[in-house]
């Protein structure tokens, strides 16, 4: 059995290609770990983010292992395995400018967003969060995550919303990221960000879903998932409770 796995291939450190041509990252490790457990061969397919679900539906591949959060709206079209990673978003912007975007309880203050351009990936959880919470914000949509950082540095956008782990590793910890910082608390409302990041699959395959679920639980319980995370981050990025039961 060969399973084709869709991912962006440009979403460091979750799934990306190194200069030596290897596809690596946390998502890749998870996919490989799962495959080993369920005894399947893998084939990776690179797909731009905005076409990820249509491509799965069009049978371009069988699984999405691309840091995709398990949200209500996505569940209408596809199924997800149980989660293997936290799903959370955070805004990044210029440091030292107290923009006062959130009240102490962590809710956005819409007035203070006016006049700001916010960069997001098209069709991301962040986009749905903004659409719901700040419908009047000036949102600029990108086809990948890399351009977000480039344009933040270039000043084409004032802030971006993205995965904080990724932002830290890919950007803030690097030289080009000096002068930028997180300008929001971690946002992870289940309504938008789901219960976490899972493996996407087409609906109507309960058996495959069950195999994926148990494989992920096994990865958590054997400590593999922590091991994967520590390759890239100083801390694990999943919830140990997901492994119980």
């Amino acid at each position, binding site marked *: 059995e060969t399973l084709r796995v869709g991912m962006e291939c440009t979403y460091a450190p979750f799934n990306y290609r190194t200069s030596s041509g290897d596809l690596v990252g946390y998502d890749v490790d998870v996919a490989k770990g799962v495959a080993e457990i369920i005894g399947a061969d893998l084939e990776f397919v690179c797909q731009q983010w*905005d*076409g990820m*679900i*249509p491509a799965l*539906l*069009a049978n371009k591949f069988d699984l999405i292992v691309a840091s995709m959060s398990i949200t209500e*709206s996505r569940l209408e*079209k596809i199924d997800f395995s149980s989660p293997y990673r936290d799903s959370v978003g955070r805004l990044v912007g210029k440091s030292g400018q107290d923009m006062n975007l959130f009240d102490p309880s962590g809710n956005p203050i819409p007035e203070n967003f006016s006049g700001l351009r916010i960069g997001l990936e*098209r*069709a991301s959880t962040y986009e749905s969060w903004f659409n719901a919470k700040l419908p009047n914000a000036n949102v*600029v*949509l*990108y*086809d990948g995550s890399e*351009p977000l950082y*480039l344009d933040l*540095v*270039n*000043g*084409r956008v004032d802030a971006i919303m993205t995965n904080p782990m990724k932002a830290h590793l890919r950007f803030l910890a690097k030289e080009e990221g000096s002068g930028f910082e997180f300008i929001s608390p971690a946002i992870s409302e289940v309504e938008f960000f789901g219960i976490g990041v899972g493996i996407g699959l087409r609906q109507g395959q309960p058996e495959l879903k069950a195999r994926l679920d148990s494989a992920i639980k096994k990865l958590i319980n054997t400590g593999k998932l922590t091991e994967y995370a520590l390759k890239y981050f100083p801390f694990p990025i999943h919830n140990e409770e997901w492994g119980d039961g």
Partner: protein
Amino acid sequence: MSFDLSLIVETVPKMLAGVGLTFQLLGLSAFLGLILAIVLLLMRISGKWYLDWPAQLYIYVFRGTPILVQIFIIYYGFPQLEFIRESVLWPIFRDPFGCAVVALSLNTGAYVSEILRGGVLGVDRGVLEAGEALGLSTTQRFIYLTTPIATRLALPAYGNDIISLLKSTALASTITLMDMTGIARTIVAQTYAPYEIFISLAIIYMILTFFLQKFISLIEAYLGRYTKRES
């Protein structure tokens, strides 16, 4: 295969909201591209190598590389260069609309200058000699004879280029612009229904192409009125 008609009814108006941006891109780039094309043309027919060669090189490079790559170099690549970030042009390059217009104009200019050159070369030499023999100066011949005749000769090819340009504006969606294609791609990302949305969008573009073509053939008929044997 399910084909969701209600989805089309619902989304077409949303896509049409982007038609204004599409036309702004088209109009502005066509205008700037034409000016660039005329400059390049004059450089090429100047007979001076130091004008001709740079123009040829420019045309060669811009016709030899994909427009998408040109767009990416200008949008993503230029800000990497310090001197561009510090130049007075930065406000243009900072703006995705500015980048798209610059890229489309630079690209179409290269093509159109060759089209115009074809028209100029197509002007009957005898006609120009007749003008010369009547005592018209070089400039007068260029204005009164070459320009009107070459315009008419170049028009059909120019029309095709305008239509190519319309289609190229769709690539602006790759640099965050919300033209019709950008909107459509966002809708697809939300509805996961590429088939319905993209087909509707294709039809919209075809209708635009159709009217553009009609418009061009009207101009052609007007400019070509002197080629018809019956009055």
